[in-house]
Every structure is written in C-alpha cells, then in structure tokens.
C-alpha cells in the first residue's frame, strides 16, 4: 500500500518537473502510448545531437514494446546511459546534453542517454606558432580533442589527467595533465590547488585561468607559457612540466616556466642544433635590440651626443636638422604610431589589415619624414625595433616587450644612459623576484645552473640533453631511464 503511495507521489513529481521544463523554449517532449504503458521522452533542443536521437533512440522505442527501462538500455547503442530516481537532477542532466526517457507504468525511473552536440572546428595548422618543418596540428576549442592530441603522442599509462570544473556559471571543464613519476608532485599539487581556489563565475579561455593562478598578477611578464602546439605540450610534459587544458580554449598553459623558455621557438628542436642555436641567439639579440635601441637613441641624442664618433654624428645631425621636437617626443610619436598600426592591424580583417600596413608603414612614414616631423634615422630604428619584437616566438612575451620600452624611454630621457641602466636594474630585480608556480623565473641564469644552460641561450644536440631541466624539479632527472618505459 505504502509503495503505491510513493509511486503516485513520484508520478506527481514527474508531472511537476515536466511542467517546469515545458516553460523552457527549447524543451521538447514526446509522449507515446504503447499497449498499456505510456512513454515520455524529453530533451533540450539546443543541447543534443538530433541526428543521433533520430537514428538510434527513436526507432528503438517506437518499434519495440518495452515494459522495463533496463531493456531499453541494452538495446540502445550508446554508452554511459544511466538510470536515476530523482526528477530534481533531471534539469541539470538535460543541460549537459542528455535525453530522458520515462515510463509511466513501471516503477518511476528516468533513463538518461547522453547525446550531447559537440560541434567543433577541425584540427587545423598552428597559426600563432607556425613552423615550416615539423607537425602541423594545432589545438582546437574542444578539450576532449585536445587531450586526445596529446594522449596519442604520449603512449604511457603514467599520463595523468586531473579533471575539474571551474566557474560558477560557465562550469568550464579544466584538465591538469602531467606524467606521473616524472613531474614533481608539488608542482601538480600547486596547480590543482590554485585552480580549485579560483573564484570566478566565468572561465571563457585558458587566459582566464592563467591570470587567476599566476604568481604575481601585477607583473607585465607572463609567468605561464601558453601554446597551441600539441607537440610542444608532449615535449614539455616529458620534461616534467604540468599542462593545463581549458575547455573552449585552443591554448594550453604550461608551468613552471622560465624567462628563456619564452624565447625558444619549438622549431628549434626540428633543426640541427647548430642552426637552432644560431637562430635562438639571433632572436635574443633581436629582442634586446628591440627593447634598447630607441631608448639609447633618445639617451644619446638628448644627453651625450659626444658618445657618437664624428662621422656618424654628422649623419644623425643632418637627419634631425628639420625636426622641431626633442628626441623623446619624436621617439614617442613614432613608437605610438607603430603601436597604432599594430593594434589596427590586429583588430581588422586580414585583407584590410594588409592595406593598413602599407598605408601606415609607407605613406605615413615617408610623409612624416618629408614633412620634417621625424628624422629618417629614427624611422629606421623604430621600424627595426618593431621587427625585432616580432621575432619572439610566444605572442604574450611580444606584448610585454612592446610595453617595457616606454618606461625605458622615460628613464632615458631623464638620465640618459645611466637612466637606461637604472631602468634595466628595476626590470632585473623585478625578474629576480618573479616566480612561476613558486619556482624562480630567471633560472638557469639565477639561480645559476650550468646543466640547464644546455637548452637556454643555445640548444645543444639531443645526446647532450640527457637530463631533464632542473628548474621543474623532475622526479626522474635522467631522460634515458630505459627500463621504465621499454618493458
């Protein structure tokens, strides 16, 4: 008797829930009558894959006479179906892309079948970190595809993926990936703990997580590396680093990282070590040049022109005779113009962007020199500096380099070369203070580690790289621990 009452109550509950659900615009329900049992099927249209529904689920229940939901489970060729009793969970499951089936006459239970719609872009070629040689796959917005891209590159059972949900509204899936036995457990713990502590309602992209868990969020320097290359992720995971995947983001975060890592392009590993080292050095030189050349121009022309030999001074002076501004103003105007061009180019569709580049670079540049607003030497210098800043393989670091030029310009204007020195000292101390997941950011320069220099400013051949970078404190330092992975 009592059982019957609960059954009735449950049916009433169901009616209530159904009424609640029907208020949603995209909720759809079907009712069929089969012999003496009535079947109800419902889903959210925006959450499920209708094709699967029509192909695998509807034919089954329409053609067969079921009296028990357990029979339905066995007949429908979709895994991870589940039976629940409580209609309160229903709504949440529907949002995640489940279809529910309810039979009135049997013991009230709901069969939930997952057929979420996961439309995603095809795996494409890397655009931000393009390389001429080497793999051509880049991450997409779907976390499962991304994890698969890494999983198929690292075929060991030790690859661990800790999954969690972040964001009170978006409930974004986040996965912390590392290789057990290589990655330092403390690093993994730090990452997981920091992600769990994130208090945000929305996580739209991996950069949200990056900003939330970074060591010093006031620093212009990024303290976690982001990449769109699955091959790079595979490589750093084997080095013992930790990767953070965020659903909806084609960029994966890597930590702990160091400053020099931001200047290593992944292509360095596809080239012969001599070439790779030379290119890396050129890139570092380009970055230093890009940061320092305009401030040095301002410093020398404002304060100590006697530093320039006579012959070169002649060229400089003659280019500046028409210019009515002091060097600092001239430099700031040109630097801002370049920044404007870059911003405009980045915001516009690529075809118009090219036009803007030509208009800005050639027309404005030539015209401003001819009008006597800037000197052509400075024009060359600023253009070269911009070119230099484009050589940074990691986009975020390129932004930082764009920015730190301006305080250097200000210091150069006030105290000349000494001012540049003071500003560099500020940056140096700041970098010394920075950490990435609690590990020093300037390693291997300071704390000085000779073994880690093998893959810093230059890249030595692979047979010299037999130790993992000490900066990440790997649990296994030697790379060639053959007995572990070649059973």
């Amino acid at each position, binding site marked *: 008797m009592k059982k019957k009452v609960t059954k009735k109550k449950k049916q009433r509950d169901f009616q209530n829930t159904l009424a609640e659900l029907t208020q949603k615009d995209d909720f759809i329900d079907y009712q069929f009558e089969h012999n003496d049992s009535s079947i109800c099927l419902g889903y959210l249209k925006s959450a499920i894959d209708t094709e699967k529904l029509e192909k695998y689920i509807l034919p089954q229940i329409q053609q067969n006479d079921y009296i028990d939901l357990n029979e339905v489970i066995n007949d429908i060729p979709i895994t991870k179906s589940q039976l629940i009793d409580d209609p309160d969970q229903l709504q949440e499951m529907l949002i995640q892309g489940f279809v529910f089936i309810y039979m009135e006459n049997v013991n009230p239970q709901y069969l939930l079948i997952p057929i979420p719609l996961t439309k995603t872009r095809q795996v494409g070629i890397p655009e931000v970190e393009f390389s001429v040689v080497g793999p051509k796959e880049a991450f997409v917005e779907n976390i499962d595809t991304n994890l698969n891209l890494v999983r198929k590159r690292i075929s060991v059972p030790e690859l661990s993926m800790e999954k969690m949900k972040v964001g009170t509204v978006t409930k974004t899936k986040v996965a912390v990936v590392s290789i057990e036995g290589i990655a330092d457990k403390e690093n993994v713990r730090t990452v997981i703990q920091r992600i769990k502590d994130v208090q945000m309602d929305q996580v739209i992209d991996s950069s949200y997580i990056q900003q939330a868990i970074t060591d010093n969020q006031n620093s212009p320097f990024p303290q976690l590396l982001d990449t769109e290359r699955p091959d790079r992720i595979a490589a750093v995971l084997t080095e013992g680093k930790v990767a953070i995947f965020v659903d909806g983001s084609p960029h994966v975060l890597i930590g702990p990282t160091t400053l020099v890592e931001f200047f290593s392009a992944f292509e360095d590993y596809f080239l012969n070590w001599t070439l790779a080292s030379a290119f890396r050095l050129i890139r570092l030189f380009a970055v230093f040049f890009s940061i320092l050349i305009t401030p040095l121009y301002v410093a020398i022309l404002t*304060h*100590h022109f*006697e*530093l*320039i*030999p*006579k012959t*070169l001074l002649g060229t400089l002076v003659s280019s500046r005779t028409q210019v009515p501004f002091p060097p600092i103003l001239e430099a700031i105007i040109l630097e801002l113009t370049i920044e404007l061009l870059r911003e405009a180019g980045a915001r516009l569709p690529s075809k118009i962007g090219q036009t803007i580049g030509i208009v800005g670079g050639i027309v404005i540049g030539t015209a401003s020199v001819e009008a006597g607003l800037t000197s052509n030497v400075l024009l060359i210098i600023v253009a070269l500096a911009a070119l230099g800043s484009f050589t940074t393989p990691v986009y975020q670091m390129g932004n930082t380099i764009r920015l730190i030029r301006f305080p250097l310009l200000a*210091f150069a204007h*006030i*105290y*000349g*070369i*000494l*001012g*540049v*020195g*003071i500003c560099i*000292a*500020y940056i*140096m*101390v*700041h970098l*010394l*203070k920075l950490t990435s997941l609690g590990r*020093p950011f*300037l390693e291997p320069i*300071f*704390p*000085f580690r000779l073994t880690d220099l093998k893959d810093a400013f230059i890249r030595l051949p692979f047979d010299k790289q037999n130790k993992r970078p000490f900066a990440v404190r790997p649990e296994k330092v030697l790379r060639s621990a053959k007995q572990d992975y070649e059973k």
Partner: protein
Amino acid sequence: MVKVKDQVPALMVFFLISAAQSGVGVLGFQSVINKYAGHDAWISIIVAGLGFNIIIWIMYRILQNNDGGEIVSIHKFTYGKWLGGILSFIFSVYLILTSIVVLRTYIEIIQVWMFPYVKVWALLLLLIPLIYYIISGEFRIVVGVCFFGVVYPFFLIFTLFYPLKYSNLTNILPILDHSFTEILQSSSLAIFSFLGISTLLVFYPFIRESRKSQKFAHIGNIYTTFLYVFICLVSYIYYNQSELQNTIWATLGLWKIIEMPFLARFEYVGIATLFFSILPNVALYLWASTRSLHNLFGISHKKTAVFLLAIVYIACIIISGREFIAFINDITGKAGGILLFCYIPILFLINLIRRKVKKNAS
C-alpha cells in the same frame, strides 16, 4: 633561525664576496695606492689580498664556532647584552656609513663625468626605491643582484686590452724597485678598495651548507684581487707615475681613449655599466645593516629598511663637495681597516677565551 627555503647555495658566497669587494674603488684606486710603493704598488694589492684571505679565515673560525653564526648573537655571547649590543650597533652604523659613502661617491662620479648639474635629491628618488625593492624582500634577491653585479660588468675587463696599444711596459720596470716596508705601506692603502667582506658576518646564516662555503669566499677574494691587480697593471703601464699624480679616476681615463666605429667616449657606457657593480654594494651593505639592526632591536625588517633608506637619502644630500666626500671616504676606509684588521682578530681571541671559560664552567 633562517629557514632552509631562504638560504642560498654555498657557491653564491663567491658572488657575494666579490660583488661586495668591487665597487667605486675600481675607478680610482690606482692613484691612491702608489703613494709609497710607486710603480710597484700592484704587488701591494697582492699582499693586501693575501691579508684578506687571512681575515676571511679568521671570520670563518668565529662564525663556525658560535651558534647562530652572525655578528649580533656573537657579540651578545662574547660581551654580554649591553656591551655586545653597543658594539653591534656601532657595526651597523659602520655598514650604513659605507653604503652612504659608496652611493655618494658614485653620484659624485656622475656629477663630474656625466651630468654636472644633476640634482642629487632627484637622482636619489629613482635609486632609493630600487634599493628598497631589493632589500625589502628575501635575501635571494640581494644575492641575485650581487650575481649580476659580478657577471654583467665582467665584459669591462676586455675593454682594458684596448689601452695596451698605447702603453709602455717600461713604466713598471724595474719590478721590486721599492723596499718591503714601502710595499706594505701601500698595502695598507690598498685594503680600502676591498673592505666589503665585513658583510659576511651578517649573511653567514643565510648560506646553505655554510661550512663548505669557506673555499668560495677565498676564491671570491682571490678573484677580486686578480681583478684589481689586472686593472692596476694596465693603468701603470699606460700612465707613468707623474701622470697618475694628476689623475683621480684613472680607470675612466683608460676608457676615454677607446674608440669604435659607432662609439667614442666609452667612459659613459662604463659608468652606466658600473652602476650594476655599485648597486649590489649599496644593497648588500644596507641589507646587512637592516638585518643586524633587526636582530638587535627586533623591529620588522621592512620598517628598518625604510628608516635606514631615509637616513641614506638625507645623508647623501647633506654630503657634498669633493673635500667632504674625500673626508668621509677616508674615515670609513680607516674605520673599515680597523674593524677588519684590528677588531676581528681581537674578537676572535676574546671569543675563544670566552668559549673556553664557559666550557670549563659547565
């Protein structure tokens, strides 16, 4: 007790010692030390360097044999609370004074060579926050600055090969033309250039496996000695002794003749680069002073640092004029000499007796 996390590897003692020893002195010691030994004064530097090795050895004996391993607690143990406290306070004041002298002398060089009309107070407004940024945090940062202070200005060594083109080897011949006493007398002048090792008495507990660090301290000292000898030799064969009499900053004079297709007047670059050698000096002295005052009075490290930087700021503005700066330099140099070569051995002996007495008593 200092936590393991805050400690730095033993190797860093090398950088700490050599960064503390090479500062403004590099620019002008040549025309000071030749007072007695003339062109043989470079031998005096070697003698002084050996002397410093002995002092480092004594310091390590004091530091290793006392728990706590830093000057304030050693003073307290040796002399009791009051006398020990006063001596620690004097030591801290000496450290502040040294940092003021180094900073002010560097600013003087800037005034003479780069910006004659620079406002000292304005320049300091840029430098003081930088020093605070360094010393307010962990010791690791100070060590990092010392590290860069040794590594980065190292390339200046190569610039000293350039003047060799115009040099005359006969300027230092005949070698050992002066008596041993004269060389010793010049050594007593040479020690002022590398007094920085007194900070070892403060940062010793911050060294991981500090007992093993002694060899690095000696190597650091030998490295600085080598550096000074090299600079001295180049100067002495470039200038003759009578020219040196009229030169205050001989090293800057050496740089003056360097010429490259894109660069004349190298001394500007030299002075700006040397900033990275001055900065660790000032930072290390002030950190050491802050730390020992913090140990002495128990006021928080950051507050003490702010207070000391205020003193440095005011003092640097008050001290002006060549004579005054030279006078202050002289006083600190003498105080440092007395501290290292008289007081440290005395402290060593008294401490030894004190420990023996205590051992016997218990």
